[in-house]
């Protein structure tokens, strides 16, 4: 009897419950995403579904996606990186200054990416070696990197028009501003996609990725299982720094200028996107797919609201409310029922 019941129960839970929490949330977010997509398609069919608009939409989420993917590594390993936005600005400035020195494009990109990784190492050093809490350490380095970006250029933007070779200037522009066939999909979207796929594979299929999950789930246990936690988490911060650098390059390229104030608050947007997609900020859960879905959601919401003529103030509120609702309902899904809410509203004792 008891056994039978147990079996029935198991059936009822179904295969959805067997998935891990992040996957479940990813599916859930995907549903919301599709819902939003359909909603906006109905509200503004001609405008929203226009290929040009969809391309714009993708281009608009490039920054959040790239920074978000990097941040996902930090979040999954139980850390955080509030310095990503500042690190992005610093990278952009270094990129353009290097180009202005007349160095070849590839060399500049390589140096700039290394610089991004260095900012990650710096974060990792304070967090892993000196034991500062990630939130605090990266808040401090945020200020340091932002300060450095400003000091380097004395607060003024650098323009790519000052690059000596017009050839390089044009090549550089193509990275972030070019489109396939001139007006097709932007290259930056493709770069983002490729980058996300690579990071996704690293996180899901490679040993270092597995180690990142272990560190995020139980650091002590990971250490005692012979995982080099310092190296692992350092790697995560480096990925975040690298992502910020890539983002910095793309943005500088597209805008033909490097602004020391660029990327302000992007880390928060990226974290919000990741969380929307189902990444747990407490570590140990979630994949790059979650982040990409979250970034898409963010993009669809913003774009859709813009197309419907909703002004910035209302947008800010609406995005906040959607974030709250989405995350709250994900949590409720996890805990299996909405008992807490019902109890709160006195619907249930």
């Amino acid at each position, binding site marked *: 009897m008891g056994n039978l019941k147990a079996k029935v129960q198991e059936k009822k839970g179904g295969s959805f419950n067997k998935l891990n929490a992040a996957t479940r949330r990813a599916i859930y977010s995907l549903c919301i995403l599709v819902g939003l997509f359909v909603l906006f398609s109905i509200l503004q069919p001609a405008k929203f579904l226009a290929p040009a608009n969809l391309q714009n939409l993708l281009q608009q989420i490039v920054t959040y996606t790239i920074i978000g993917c990097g941040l996902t590594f930090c979040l999954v390993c139980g850390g955080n990186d509030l310095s990503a936005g500042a690190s992005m600005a610093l990278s952009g400035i270094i990129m353009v200054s290097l180009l202005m020195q007349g160095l070849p494009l590839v060399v500049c990109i390589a140096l700039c990416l290394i610089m991004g990784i260095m900012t990650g190492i710096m974060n990792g050093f304070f967090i892993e070696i000196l034991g500062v809490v990630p939130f605090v350490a990266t808040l401090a380095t945020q200020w340091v990197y932002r300060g450095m970006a400003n000091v380097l250029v004395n607060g003024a933007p650098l323009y790519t028009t000052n690059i000596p070779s017009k050839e390089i200037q044009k090549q550089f522009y193509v990275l972030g501003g070019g489109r396939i066939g001139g007006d097709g999909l932007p290259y930056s979207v493709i770069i983002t996609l490729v980058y996300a796929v690579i990071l996704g594979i690293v996180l899901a299929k*490679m040993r270092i990725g597995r180690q990142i999950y272990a560190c995020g789930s139980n650091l002590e246990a990971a250490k005692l299982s012979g995982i080099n936690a310092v190296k692992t988490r350092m790697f995560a911060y480096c990925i975040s720094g690298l992502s910020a650098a890539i983002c910095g390059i793309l943005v500088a390229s597209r805008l033909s200028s490097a602004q020391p104030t660029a990327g302000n608050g992007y880390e928060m947007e990226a974290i919000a996107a990741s969380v929307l997609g189902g990444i747990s900020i407490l570590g140990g859960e979630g994949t790059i797919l979650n982040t990409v879905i979250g970034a898409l959601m963010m993009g669809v919401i913003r774009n859709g609201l813009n197309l419907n003529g909703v002004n910035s103030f209302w947008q800010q509120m609406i995005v906040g409310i959607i974030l709250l609702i989405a995350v709250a309902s994900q949590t409720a899904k996890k805990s299996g029922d909405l008992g807490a809410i019902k109890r709160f509203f006195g619907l249930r004792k």
Partner: protein
Amino acid sequence: MEQELFRMEGISKSFPGVKALDKVSLSVNKGEVLGLVGENGAGKSTLMKILSGVHRADEGEIFIEGNKVDIDSVAKAHELGVCIIMQELNMCGHLSVADNIFIGRAHKKGIFIDDGKMHEEAKKILDDLGIELNTYAHVGSLSIAQQQMVEIAKAISFNSKILVLDEPTATLTEKEIDQLFGIIRRLKEKGVGMVYISHRMAELNQICERVTIIRDGQYIGTRNLNEITMDQLVNMIVGRSLEDKYPKYKRNIGEIVLEARNVRRGTKVNADYFYVKKGEILGISGLVGAGRTELMRCIFGADQADSMELTLEGKPIKVNSVIQAIKHGIGYATEDRKRDGLALGLDIKYNTNMAHLQNITRFGFINDKEGLKNAEKYVELLRTKTPSVHQLCGNLSGGNQQKVVLAKWLCNDVKVLIVDEPTRGIDVGAKYEVYELFNKLSAQGVSIIMISSELPEILGMSDRILVIHQGEINGELDAKTATQEDILYLAAGYNKLEGKPAPVLSGGGNRKGE
């Protein structure tokens, strides 16, 4: 004169995917200690959590002194005079001992907390229980055993009429267990009804008259202990009979594998010399807080020793980190699975493979199939009770979690396996399996260093026993001839008081020559 204190009737409880309890009943009389036994995952803790307001039952009723009650929160349970000592420690590490004892109900003077009074009261309770602790000490700085004693003091301080003890002795050594039993007997005289959960049959015999047995969430029966034999009881628990509690194999002990000299770390570890041979089980005994865990953490590289010379199979080795230790074939199953043993948010498959990701990696990529095979193999081998290897470890019962911890090291081809309290919180059936496993491993030539606070286990399983006292090795005993008294004598350091030298076995005596 037997007067019923409380009764639970037809309690059922399901968790997603698991039916933890199915119409279980039990009753306790005034001034009685009822034993509650069953295999790991039988549902003992769940049942008691329902009684104490942590979980709510799906169906069933609870009566206290004949009145039906609805226990919907811990606070309500306290109100009704129900108190529980949880299986897992639940302490606020940043707060003082007194704060923890009176957590949420500190003494007040007007609207402010009366710290003086609170510490005074706490001191009184601790003194009453014979526990020596500074009430101002931060609980985080205490050893696990000391924390457990604070937990007990806290439960006692409620002056409740119903007290549940969920494996309270798992982290205690003999001396503290005796102390605890003294306390329990005193409470009994006061008419407090208690439920006592333990996997140690000997303890049940000491303090319980009746035991209730549950298996797989189902009620099996309630028996008077003096009416059934131990074998019958074990039979009821596991549904099968076990021939011998400690399956002794004829061990084939070989050459010395690991030798350690001058292991020192601060004041906690101060070991001059010890060794372990191929295929041998070396028991490490001592009072709680003697520094056994710390010593082994040094050997494993988890803590940086101030000085340490290790020799593995005759060659000197350096162990500065866990990674190096693992590379040399040393494994270490920790004592606190919740804190540093398992990634509770990840599944069994992941945890099983965590310590040997390297071996299932090709070009940096993980071979998931191999990992799956591994996990399934050990779930079967250790009879871990779980719907699948994809179950999150956080959803397993304590004992099943411990099995996963062991599996993690077993699949990692170790030469020396250090196990710290390997059977803490494991039921008799599983224990037997673990012991058999140890025997099998030693037959394969693995050396096992086993830290245990359970004296019968140490005596039953080991070949040699080292006794640690205040971080020093205070003697070595031959398990075949040693008695519990011998171990306790050394563990308490009486030989030092009496000026006698520590006993040294001939096997270890030739260290100068090596």
